[in-house]
C-alpha cells in the first residue's frame, strides 16, 4: 500500500486516482470531525466535500512538513467553522435531544444525564480548549498533531487540553463523587499501561 505522501506527490503530478485514494482513506475521519462541529449530516457532507476540493486545488502548496491527515484536519475544521459562522452559529449550542429512557433503568437515565451535562459543559469551554479536547479524546491525535492543526506550540496544545479537562472536572465534581456509570475502575487500565475500551463507530 502506498504511503499518503507518495499519493500526494502523484496527485501533485496530476494523477486524480491518487487523490481519490486519499479521499477514500480519510473521508470517514473528516466526516466525523465535521459532524462533531456542525451537528448535521447534510452540512457535514458539504463541509467534507468542500474541504477535499480545497485540498485538491491547493495540493501543490502542501509542502509535506506535516502529514496529509493533519493538513486535512485543519482544512476541515476551518471549513466547518466558516460554515457555522455563515449560519450565524459562532459556537456549538447545547443539544436539545429528546431523551428516551426506560423508566426501570435508573443507571441508564443517569448515564444519559451525565452525557448531556458533559456536552453542555464542553460547549461552554473556550473554542481552542474545545478543539484540543475534541482532537485528543475523540480523534486520538498526539499533542504534536494537535499543535500542527491548531497552529500553536506543543505546550500550548497541551495546556488547552489540560485547562479543558480541569474545568470539566470542577464542573462535574459532584457527579464524579457519586456516580460510577459502569462500575469499573478506570485506574486499572492505566496501571497496566493499556487504553480504555473504544466506543465502536
Amino acid at each position, binding site marked *: 500500500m502506498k504511503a499518503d505522501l507518495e499519493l500526494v506527490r502523484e496527485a501533485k503530478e496530476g494523477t*486524480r486516482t491518487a*487523490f*481519490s485514494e486519499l*479521499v*477514500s482513506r480519510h473521508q*470517514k475521519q473528516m*466526516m*466525523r470531525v465535521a*459532524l*462533531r462541529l456542525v*451537528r*448535521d*449530516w447534510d452540512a457535514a*457532507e458539504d463541509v*467534507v*466535500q468542500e474541504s*477535499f*476540493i*480545497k485540498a*485538491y*486545488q*491547493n495540493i501543490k*502548496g*502542501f*509542502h*509535506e512538513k*506535516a502529514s496529509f491527515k*493533519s*493538513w486535512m484536519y485543519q482544512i476541515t475544521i476551518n471549513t466547518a467553522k466558516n460554515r457555522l459562522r455563515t449560519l450565524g452559529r459562532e459556537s*456549538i449550542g447545547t443539544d436539545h435531544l429528546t431523551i428516551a429512557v426506560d423508566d426501570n433503568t435508573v443507571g441508564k437515565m443517569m*448515564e444519559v444525564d*451525565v*452525557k*448531556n451535562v*458533559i*456536552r453542555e459543559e464542553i460547549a461552554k469551554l473556550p473554542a481552542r480548549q474545545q478543539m484540543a*479536547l475534541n482532537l485528543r*479524546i*475523540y480523534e486520538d491525535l498526539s*499533542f504534536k498533531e494537535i499543535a*500542527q492543526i491548531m*497552529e500553536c506550540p506543543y505546550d500550548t496544545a*497541551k495546556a488547552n*487540553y*489540560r485547562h479543558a*479537562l*480541569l474545568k*470539566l*472536572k470542577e464542573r*462535574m465534581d459532584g457527579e*464524579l463523587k457519586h456516580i*460510577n*456509570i*459502569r462500575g469499573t475502575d*478506570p*485506574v486499572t487500565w492505566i*496501571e497496566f499501561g493499556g487504553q*480504555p475500551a473504544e*466506543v465502536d*463507530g
Partner: protein
Amino acid sequence: MSDDTWWIEFMEDEVEPSLRLGMEKMLRESNEDHNRLENMARLRQWIKESDPSEDLWRSEVNKNRLNSLQEKIMSKIAAIDEVNSQPRGSLPPSEAKPPRMVARSLRSLNKGF
C-alpha cells in the same frame, strides 16, 4: 503544577519514565492520589462516551450515504478539472479566475504545512 495536572500528564502518558515510576508508587500508597487519577480517568471516559456525533454516526441511512461520498467528491473534482482544462477565452468571466477572497483562503491553507 497542581496535583490534578500531574495526574493528567500521567494519564496521557506524557511523564518521563523515571517520574512515572515514582507516580506509580504514589498510586499504590496513597488513596487520595488513587482517587484523583480515578476521577480524571472516569471523566475522560465520560467525555469519550458523550461524543455528540455518535447518534448520527450510527444511523444506517447515514452509513449508506457515507459510501457514496468519495464518488460525489471525485465527480466534483473531475468537473473542476474539466472547466480548468478549457481555454481561458472560452470561459465566462465569472469562472475564469477564482474570486479574490477564495484565492486568499487557498493561499492560507498551506501555512505551516
